[in-house]
């Protein structure tokens, strides 16, 4: 009797949880559609091509920054080398086009090769604890970009190369990829879908096991989970997101160079993620937007942008561990608490 009732209670609880989760997914779906639709009037209302282009670049950098922020949030691992995957993806798109092959093939390669590479590298480097992982991602990023720099025959060396997009992509006029208005809408939609996908991953069973490994790897292993392969897979997922950013950037610029792989770009993506905040998935996007527009506003001190960004990084790391998005949420929750007159968590 008691056993049965306990079982019933369990199922009831589980059903309630499933229902709550479905409701959350539904509301997220609504946010998803609103977020995608909302950018359309913005894209058409902003008249300045310069601002539109800046926004598009910020969105694409936001994808790369999200790949870094996601890894910190999900796995607790700080990568200094995700531009290596971003740049590899860029070359995967550009090289087939240069050789006269099709664009969809290039995009497919770009979405498969870098994550596969990341998975294999991940199997080795995720075993190494904490800081050493970060040091190695930096070394890997640097080695891959050196490799691209030296393979002049393939990559065009330091100068890189530009290429022409085909006239149509899956029946659409390909020029939409290079007009700021349409590309802003397109890359924003991709970014929103990426965020949605990552949030689904975080809430999936697999994602929660990865989070458990982040909290205590030894205990997770003790319970019986394979921790190395799961952390490597999460690293590969992060590389996959970085690759999406690389594909978007390459399509928009129709140009690649080894600079897309350089550690300074990886570092910038990490800075965006930290400034934006890593407790929330969309924090990195806020960081990317902040970095792009702050640089534009900086004007005269723009010459010393690197030092300025270094100072901002230090200030945020020490004084604002939740980043801008964390601060935004704090203000929002304080506001709603005032409004409702009771203590919201």
């Amino acid at each position, binding site marked *: 009797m008691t056993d049965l009732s306990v079982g019933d209670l369990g199922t009831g609880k589980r059903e309630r949880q499933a229902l709550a989760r479905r409701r959350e997914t539904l509301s997220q779906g609504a946010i998803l559609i609103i977020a995608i639709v909302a950018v359309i009037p913005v894209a058409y209302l902003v008249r300045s091509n310069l601002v539109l282009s800046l926004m598009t670049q910020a969105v694409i950098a936001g994808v790369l920054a999200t790949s870094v922020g996601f890894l910190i949030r999900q796995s607790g691992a700080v990568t200094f080398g995700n531009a290596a995957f971003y740049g590899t993806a860029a070359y995967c798109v550009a090289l087939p086009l240069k050789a006269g092959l099709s664009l969809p093939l290039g995009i497919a390669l770009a979405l498969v090769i870098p994550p596969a590479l990341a998975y294999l590298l991940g199997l080795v480097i995720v075993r190494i604890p*904490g800081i050493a992982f970060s*040091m190695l991602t930096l*070394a890997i990023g640097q080695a891959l970009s050196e490799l691209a720099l030296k393979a002049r025959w393939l990559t065009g060396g330091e100068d890189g190369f530009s290429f022409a997009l085909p006239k149509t992509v899956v029946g659409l006029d390909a020029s939409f990829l290079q007009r700021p208005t349409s590309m802003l809408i397109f890359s924003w939609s991709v970014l929103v879908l990426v965020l949605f996908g990552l949030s689904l991953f975080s809430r999936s069973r697999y994602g929660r096991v990865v989070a458990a490994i982040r909290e205590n790897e030894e205990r997770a292993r003790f319970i019986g989970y394979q921790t190395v392969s799961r952390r490597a897979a999460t690293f590969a997922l992060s590389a996959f997101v970085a690759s999406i950013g690389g594909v978007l950037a390459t399509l928009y610029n129709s140009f690649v160079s080894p600079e897309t792989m350089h550690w300074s770009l990886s570092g910038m993506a990490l800075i965006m993620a930290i400034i934006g905040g890593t407790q929330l998935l969309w924090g990195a996007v806020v960081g990317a937007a902040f970095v792009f527009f702050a640089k534009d506003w900086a004007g005269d001190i723009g010459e010393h942008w690197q030092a300025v960004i270094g100072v901002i990084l230090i200030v945020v790391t020490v004084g604002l561990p939740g980043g801008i998005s964390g601060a935004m949420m704090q203000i929002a929750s304080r506001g709603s608490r005032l409004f409702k007159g009771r203590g919201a968590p």
Partner: protein
Amino acid sequence: MIVQLINGLAYGGLLYVVAVGLVLIFGLRQVVNFAHGSLFMLGAYVGYVISFYAGFWAGLVVAIAALGILGSLLDIAVFGPLRHRGPMTTVLVTFGLALILEDFAQAIWGKGLRLQQPPPFLSGTVAIFGDSFPVYRLAVIAMAAIVCLGLAIWMRKTRVGLFVRASSVDPEGTAMQGVNTDRLSILVVGLGTSLSGLAGVIAAPLLSLSPSMGSYVLIDSFIVVVLGGIGSFSGAFLAAILIGQIHNLGVIFVPSLAAVIPLALMSLVLMWRPSGLAGTAA
């Protein structure tokens, strides 16, 4: 061939001096100083400027002293206050510092490459098995050996050295035994950064000076530190000699793959021993 091995030894010696500074800092503070490469670069420029007025050796001494003071300040201002905030916080702050220092060097000395001449009596060549070889590279090896011996004697024979060794094995236990690790680390972090300054000055005649010269050395020395087993002095020594050789042979025989070979070697070793050559089984 012998000449090539000696070349590799010179680069390995240089890497050792940089990497052992990282290991010293890690031992006391359990953090990795991402600004170490920028301090190396700064040391090179300080040596360069002073050598104009007072010669190479004065440049070396001033750079060591200046970088040592800077390191102690770094410990007082950054590592100390942030010691309870998780190692990643310090990594990010030192990364920010690296960006600032690089910009600073660029503002003062410009982006262009600058050349530093070795001191006159070390600038010739010497014949080794029929090949002529720059004397200066032998001097680099000698200086790295002096650093290595000096550190070994300091750590084995002195009381402070004992504290440093103890702290690199178990910092909490050492503090509990009554060692003031905060005061000790001001000294040790200063020592670590002064070694990066020393490395910068002696590397300057081999590499050309530029604000970004530190990043390559930093990355190679990271490989050394991880390969040797993070926090291990003997591991760093072994790994530096190994990476110096591998790097140099790679540059000669397969230049297009030279950047990847040290990394590939390291991956193989880490698959075999995840905690590095001299690391304890984690």
